[in-house]
Every structure is written in structure tokens, then in C-alpha cells.
């Protein structure tokens, strides 16, 4: 006869992790949704208002991209949590895919931000340097 004390049964741990994963992934989805709603309202206001410069739209688009990256971070955290208990090859593969997507998004977004900054600092291509920037 074996006397064993189960402090934290695996089934309970599995359920707890499952809840945590869902909470973290829901937070990621909420961040993406909120970012998209904010960007959508800003696009409408800029498009229907007076600020119709392409640079204004690019700025709004980049802000949406930052929300996407943040939401992806949460999703990645959820995936890391889900691999905490008995990770399968499928889960590891999906984690790798999401990490690749997140890294690619991060990389391209950083390049876009750097390019936007260079354009703002260096002036607009079709305008003289003295009139750099949007009206």
C-alpha cells in the first residue's frame, strides 16, 4: 500500500492552466479588437474630416499595428502557458508558427516606423525640404 499525498492533482493543474490560457488569449483578442475599433474611428474621423493627409492615415495604421503586436504577445503567452502541461508536437508546432508570425510582424512594423520617422525628419519626397511635413 502506498501512501501518497496529492497536493495539486494533475487534473486540477490542467484545468487551472486551461482557464489561465483562455483568460490570457481573451485579453489578447480584446487588445486587438480595441485597437481595431480605435483605429477604425480615427480612420473615419480623418477621412471624413479635414485631416486627409496620407501621413495621418499611415500614423493611424502604425498605431493599429502596435496594438496587433501587443495582442500577439498575449496570444504567445497563452500558447507558452498551454505547453506547460504535456505539450504535444502539434502544440509546439503551432507555438513556433505563432512566434514566427509575431516576430515577422514585429520586424516589419519596426521597419515601417523607422521609415515613417525618416520621412518625417527628411521631408516629403515631392516637396522641397523647407515645406517638409503635412500641412
Amino acid at each position: 500500500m502506498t501512501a501518497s499525498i496529492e497536493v495539486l492533482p494533475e487534473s486540477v493543474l490542467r484545468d487551472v492552466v486551461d482557464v489561465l490560457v483562455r483568460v490570457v488569449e481573451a485579453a489578447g483578442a480584446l487588445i486587438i479588437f480595441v485597437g481595431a475599433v480605435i483605429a477604425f474611428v480615427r480612420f473615419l474621423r480623418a477621412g471624413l474630416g479635414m485631416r486627409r493627409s496620407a501621413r495621418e492615415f499611415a500614423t493611424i495604421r502604425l498605431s493599429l499595428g502596435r496594438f496587433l503586436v501587443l495582442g500577439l504577445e498575449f496570444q504567445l503567452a497563452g500558447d507558452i502557458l498551454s505547453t506547460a502541461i504535456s505539450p504535444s508536437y502539434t502544440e509546439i508546432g503551432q507555438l513556433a508558427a505563432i512566434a514566427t508570425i509575431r516576430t515577422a510582424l514585429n520586424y516589419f512594423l519596426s521597419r515601417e516606423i523607422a521609415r515613417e520617422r525618416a520621412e518625417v525628419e527628411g521631408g516629403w519626397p515631392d516637396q522641397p525640404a523647407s515645406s517638409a511635413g503635412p500641412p
Partner: protein
Amino acid sequence: MLDMSELLDMTELLDMTELLDTVAILLTGAALVAAAVVLAATRQLACALPVLLEFLTAAGLTRLARDPTWTSLLMAGGVIVLRRLILVSLGPGRSVHTADQPRAE
């Protein structure tokens, strides 16, 4: 100690597959509207297309928040690759012209 039945109820409560599907559809609609607004305001496809693809990326990432499948992963990755290809094909600097300051022909 956690009550197992409460925990399972919470898990079912947090199963938001339908909600996330709805959000993804809403974001797809927002993509079309926002891109149309930008296109109407700037009259430049180079400005409107990135907006469309950014929102479509958001929709794809929302779908990833539920149980991710290889199909949803491929779709999200595909949109990002497509977005980059379109941006590269449009060329750098083409998105910076303003509607009230058209390009010199």
C-alpha cells in the same frame, strides 16, 4: 482548494469561439469600410491597401485567439506575407503624398 465544478463552469464561460468569430467578421467589415474611406479621401490605392490588409491581419489574429488550427495560422501568415508583397510592389514613398497635394505628373 478550487472547486472543480466551478472551474469547469468558468472554462465553459470563457469558451468564446462564437464571439471571436463574430469579432473577426466585424473586423473584416471594418477593413472594407476603412479602406474605402481612405481610398475616397486620398484617391491612392497605395494608401488604402495597407489599411485593408492591416485590418484583415487583425481579423486573422482574432481567429488565432480561439483554438488555433493550421488553417487559421496559414491564413494569418498569408495575409502578412501578402501585405508585405503588396507594399513592396507599390514601392517605397508612394504612400506619403497627400490628397490635397497631388503628385507632380
